[in-house]
C-alpha cells in the first residue's frame, strides 16, 4: 500500500515497520526533520548519547545482546565522522547496525557547504554497504534494504546518508518486500558432500577439536543449541575465540576455555596437537594463529563460514564449507547420526587424558602476593562468584582487564558478552553497556573497564543518568595503560613511554558529580561487600577498584611464536619475544 509522506516521516515509519524500538543518536542541523518526526511519536524511543561514537557502540551493544540490529542516528559532517570508529568496530566484529546520517541538501553537495563531509566516501571502507539517497521516492526501499543487508549473510554495519531536502520532500512510502525477493541472499546451506567428508573425518579422528567463534553467536540461538548437542554427542573438546564466548557453556565439561594469545594453555596445546580442527564461524585471526607456519601443523582443517573470503584467507583449509553455522551443524548432526554415531571413542578418551594433563597445569593460577592489595584476577573471580546467579550481561573496554574478564568470568549463554575484539576499541565498553541495558532493562549490566579506556567515553554518565540506566562501571584501576605497559616491559626494555594514567579523577566524586553512586575499594577484605553494594544499588555506579599496578596478563603466546611456546607467568618472560615478533602487534 502506497502512502504519501515526507522523507523524514518515512524514516520513522520504516524503523517501526522493521521492528525497531530504540534509536541511539545525537541531533544536528541536517537531521532536524527526522528529529521532528521522532518528537511526534511514541513507538520508538530515542536515547540521547553525549558523543556520536557512543551512539554507535550503544547500538552495537544493543545488537550483540539481542541478536536484532541496532540503530543510530547522527547529523552530517562531524556527526558522521564521529561515527567512523564505531562503524569500523562493527565491521570487524560482524555486528549488524544501521546508521542514519543527515547530509546537506542535494543541491549543495560538493560545494563545501556548512557541515558537509563526503560521508559515503569516508564510510565506504568501514561499512558493509552504504547509500546516499538522492530522491525521496527511493528512500523507503533503501531503508528496508539496509536492514536486509545488515542482517543477512555475514552481518555488518550499513549507513544511509540522507540529504536534508530528501527528508523534507514528499513521496510514496512503500512496504518492505519479502526477504527472499532480494538478490543479495548468500546461501546458508552447506555443500552436502563436504559435510559428509567432514563427518567421515570426525568418525575416525583420534584428536578432534571444535574451534568456534563469533559466527556461532551471529547465527542465532539455534546455532548454540546445535553446537552443544554436537559436542555432547561426539565428546570432542571445544574452545572458542574471544568473540564466541557463551555459545558453549563455560560449565560444560568439554569446555577448554578461550584460545589464542591470552587463551588457556589447554586450549592452545590442544589446537596445536589436534588431528582434526573443526572451525565453526571463526576467522583465524592473528591473535589465534600466532606463527602461521607453526599453527597446528599436523591437523586436517575444516572451516564452516558464511563468508567465502574468510576461508583460506590465512590458513589452508582441507574441508571448506560455505554456509550458516546453524544450518551446517544441523546437517552435521543428521548425517553423523544417520551413519551410525561413530567416533573413535578409545582414541578420543586418550586425547582427553592428554588434555587433562594440560588442564592440570592450571594456567590461570596467579601469585597471591600482598594480602593488602587486590589482584585484578581476584577482583574478577569475586565478581564472577557474586554475580553468576544474576541475569547478567558483561561488556568490556580494551586492555588487560578485557583479557582477564574473558579468562575469569564464565559465560553460560550466547549474547551475554560484548567486547571489541577485531578493532580493539578503547571506549567501547561503557556506551555498549548502555545499549545492552536499554535492551534488557531489568538485567545486571556490568562494564569491566580499565581506567584509561573508561575515560575515553566517560561523558556517557550523562546518558546513563538521564535514562535511568543502572549500568555498573567496574573499573580495574591500575593507574597504567596496563596492556601497553606489559608490552613495553616484555619488548621495549621496560621503558614505560607514556603508559601511565596520570591526573586521574577521583572516580567517587566524578560519579557524584553526575548524581550517580561512586564506590572505591582497595582492600581485598572489603571487596565482596563493595561488589554487593554495587549490585544492590538501583542506578549507575562507578566502582573504582584499585588493583595491583604491575600485574601482567598470562598466559600469553608471544607475538610471532607458536601455540606450544606459551608463557605461563612472569618467570618465563625474559627474552621471550624474538626480534621477528617485535614488529608484530
Amino acid at each position: 500500500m502506497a502512502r504519501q509522506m515526507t522523507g523524514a516521516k518515512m524514516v520513522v515509519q520504516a524503523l517501526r515497520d522493521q521492528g525497531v524500538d530504540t534509536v541511539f543518536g545525537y541531533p544536528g542541523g541536517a537531521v532536524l526533520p527526522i528529529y521532528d518526526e521522532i518528537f511526534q511519536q511514541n513507538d520508538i524511543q530515542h536515547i540521547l548519547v553525549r558523543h556520536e561514537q557512543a551512539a554507535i557502540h550503544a547500538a552495537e551493544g544493543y545488537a550483540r545482546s539481542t541478536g536484532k540490529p541496532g540503530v543510530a542516528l547522527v547529523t552530517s559532517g562531524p556527526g558522521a565522522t564521529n561515527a567512523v570508529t564505531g562503524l569500523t568496530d562493527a565491521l570487524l566484529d560482524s555486528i549488524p547496525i544501521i546508521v542514519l546520517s543527515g547530509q546537506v541538501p542535494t543541491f549543495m553537495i560538493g560545494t563545501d557547504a556548512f557541515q558537509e563531509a563526503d560521508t559515503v566516501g569516508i564510510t565506504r571502507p568501514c561499512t558493509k554497504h552504504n547509500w546516499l539517497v538522492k530522491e525521496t521516492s527511493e528512500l523507503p526501499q533503501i531503508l528496508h534494504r539496509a536492514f536486509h543487508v545488515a542482517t543477512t549473510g555475514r552481518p555488518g554495519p550499513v549507513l544511509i546518508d540522507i540529504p536534508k531536502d530528501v527528508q523534507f520532500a514528499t513521496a510514496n512510502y512503500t512496504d518492505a518486500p519479502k526477504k527472499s525477493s532480494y538478490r543479495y541472499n548468500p546461501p546458508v546451506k552447506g555443500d552436502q558432500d563436504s559435510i559428509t567428508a567432514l563427518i567421515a573425518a570426525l568418525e575416525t579422528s583420534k584428536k578432534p577439536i571444535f574451534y568456534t567463534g563469533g559466527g556461532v553467536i551471529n547465527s542465532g540461538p539455534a546455532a548454540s543449541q546445535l553446537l552443544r548437542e554436537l559436542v555432547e554427542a561426539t565428546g570432542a573438546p571445544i574452545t572458542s575465540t574471544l568473540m564466541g564466548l557463551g555459545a558453549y557453556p563455560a560449565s560444560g565439561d568439554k569446555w577448554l576455555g578461550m584460545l589464542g594469545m591470552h587463551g588457556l594453555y589447554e586450549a592452545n596445546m590442544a589446537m596445536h596437537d589436534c588431528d582434526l580442527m573443526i572451525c565453526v564461524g571463526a576467522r583465524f585471526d592473528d591473535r589465534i594463529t600466532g606463527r602461521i607456519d607453526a599453527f597446528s601443523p599436523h591437523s586436517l582443517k575444516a572451516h564452516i563460514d558464511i563468508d567465502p573470503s574468510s576461508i583460506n584467507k590465512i590458513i589452508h583449509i582441507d574441508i571448506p564449507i560455505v554456509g550458516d553455522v546453524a544450518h551446517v551443524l544441523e546437517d552435521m548432526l543428521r548425517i553423523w547420526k544417520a551413519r551410525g554415531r561413530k567416533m573413535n571413542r578409545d582414541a578420543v578418551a586418550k586425547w582427553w587424558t592428554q588434555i587433562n594433563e594440560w588442564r592440570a597445569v592450571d594456567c590461570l593460577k596467579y601469585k597471591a602476593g600482598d594480602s593488602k592489595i587486590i589482584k585484578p584476577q581476584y577482583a574478577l573471580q569475586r565478581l564472577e562468584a557474586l554475580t553468576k546467579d544474576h541475569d547478567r550481561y558483561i561488556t568490556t573496554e580494551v586492555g588487560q582487564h578485557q583479557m582477564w574478564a574473558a579468562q575469569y568470568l564464565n559465560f553460560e549463554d550466547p549474547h551475554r558478552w560484548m567486547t571489541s575484539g577485531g578493532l580493539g576499541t578503547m571506549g567501547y565498553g561503557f556506551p555498549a553497556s548502555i545499549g545492552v541495558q536499554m535492551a534488557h532493562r531489568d538485567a545486571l549490566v556490568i562494564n569491566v573497564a580499565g581506567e584509561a579506556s573508561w575515560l575515553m567515553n566517560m561523558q556517557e554518565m550523562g546518558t546513563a543518568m538521564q535514562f535511568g540506566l543502572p549500568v555498573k562501571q567496574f573499573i580495574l584501576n591500575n593507574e597504567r595503560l596496563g596492556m601497553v605497559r606489559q608490552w613495553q616491559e616484555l619488548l621495549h626494555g621496560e621503558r614505560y613511554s607514556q603508559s601511565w594514567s596520570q591526573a586521574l579523577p577521583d572516580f567517587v566524586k566524578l560519579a557524584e558529580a553526575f548524581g550517580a553512586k561512586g564506590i572505591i575499594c582497595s582492600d581485598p577484605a572489603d571487596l565482596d561487600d563493595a561488589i554487593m553494594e554495587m549490585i544492590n544499588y538501583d542506578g549507575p555506579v562507578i566502582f573504582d577498584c584499585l588493583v595491583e599496578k604491575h600485574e601482567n596478563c598470562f598466559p600469553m603466546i608471544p607475538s610471532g611464536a607458536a601455540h606450544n611456546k606459551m608463557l605461563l607467568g612472569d618467570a618465563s618472560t625474559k627474552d621471550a619475544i624474538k626480534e621477528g615478533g617485535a614488529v608484530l602487534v
Partner: protein
Amino acid sequence: MNALQIKKGANKHSAYNLRPTFSDTVEQHTLAVLVDNEAGVLARVIGLFSGRGYNIDSLTVAEVDRAGHLSRITIVTRGTPQVIEQIKAQLGRIVPVHTVNDLTVEGPSVERELALIKVTSEGEKRVEALRLADIFRAKVVDSTLSSFVFELTGTPDKIDAFADLMRPIGLSEVARTGVAALRRGED
C-alpha cells in the same frame, strides 16, 4: 625496523603474512565482474584493491545492460593462486556484485584492448611507421604532415609490442582502453 634487521614489507617473519605459503608463483588473471550500475560501485571495487594491497594491471568498466542497470568491470590482476582466490571472494562479497568470473581459468576466452597511438616523425621514419602499422593492422585515424594517430585493437601484448616498435620512430602519446574479455563458445 633496522635494529631488528627486518626489511619493511618482508613477510618471512610476520604473522601478517596473510598469504598462505603453499605457492609463491605469481599469476595474471582476468576477472569479469558483473555489478549493479549504482553510484559508488567502481569506488568500492577500486577501494578493495587499494585497501587490501592487491594489484590492478588493467581495469575497464561500462554499462552492458541498460534496462537491467548492469555494468561489467573487467579487471586484470596478478597474485599467487591464494591471493587470486581471496580477490575473487572479496569481490564476491561486495553487495552490488552479481557474479565474478575468472576468465583465465574458466575455459578459453578472448581478450581485446583498443589503443590510440600518436607517432610524430618525418621523412623515412614516417614510411617505417606506416609499414609497421600495416603489419599490425593498425588504422590511421588522423594524420598531419608530421604525425599519425593509429588505432589498434588486439591483446595487450600486441599493443605493447606495437608501442615498443614505435618508440624509436617517434612515439609521442598512447591512450589505451584496458582489457575487455569474454569467454569463447556458446555461453
